[in-house]
């Protein structure tokens, strides 16, 4: 299982960097499309959740294969 804390910190950093770029777009678009702090956190949690679900699926499959072999 991956280091969750490290990955979560990395995901938040990625989301924040993206958000800075989205903020810069305001002058171009004429309105602000950046995310709030809550959204940044929620986006990071969603991605981590999806990654965790995949990891768990893999581990269950691997355990089942070991069991049946």
């Amino acid at each position, binding site marked *: 299982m991956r280091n969750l804390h490290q990955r979560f910190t990395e995901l938040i950093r990625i989301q924040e960097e*993206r958000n800075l770029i989205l903020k810069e777009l305001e002058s171009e678009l004429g309105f602000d499309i950046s995310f709030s702090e809550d959204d940044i956190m929620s986006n990071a949690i969603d991605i981590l959740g999806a990654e965790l679900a995949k990891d768990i699926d893999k581990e269950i499959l691997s355990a089942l294969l070991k069991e049946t072999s």
Partner: protein
Amino acid sequence: MDEVTFIVRLLTDNWASTATTLTNNGSIIASHAVTPKFIDVRSIEPKTGRRVDVDSQEVIIVFEESANTEYPTIDYAVRNESFTFTLHIRVLHRRDFPTITYSRDRLQALYRIARYILEHNSLRPTVYVGGGTSGTIEESAELLKLTSRSEANDRGKRLLGYKLSVEMKRIGRNT
């Protein structure tokens, strides 16, 4: 062509024809058959003086979330690539919209157009040289799937949004 550009091109090239199809079959109303601005954050060049039209206050932002490569055979000859993307559809609610639910309906229409494109390109999605929906193949993948949708509204900024997760697979050989 990188994968984010591929997704943006697939949506852009198919958007107008899909909007027409969905308008004709009654899934969306004609006033919502608009083309949003597609944003790939990596390719933004700030202060280039570009401005969107006053009328086109919808954006679709495309992010790549993950890219995994697996070699499932003993000789590592087969390459399976999986990519996941997030598509943020964001619609600005304007006070001058004719009805209070106009922006909500606009968001729903944009979602339906995006979903239609993804569903109708689920097997071997392809983009063609010069845009459009036929001709010489420029880039393709094997499988494309819309995996989830969640609401992402921002009341303070008067933005309505959907967050879509999309998965794409590419299969290749290293020979």
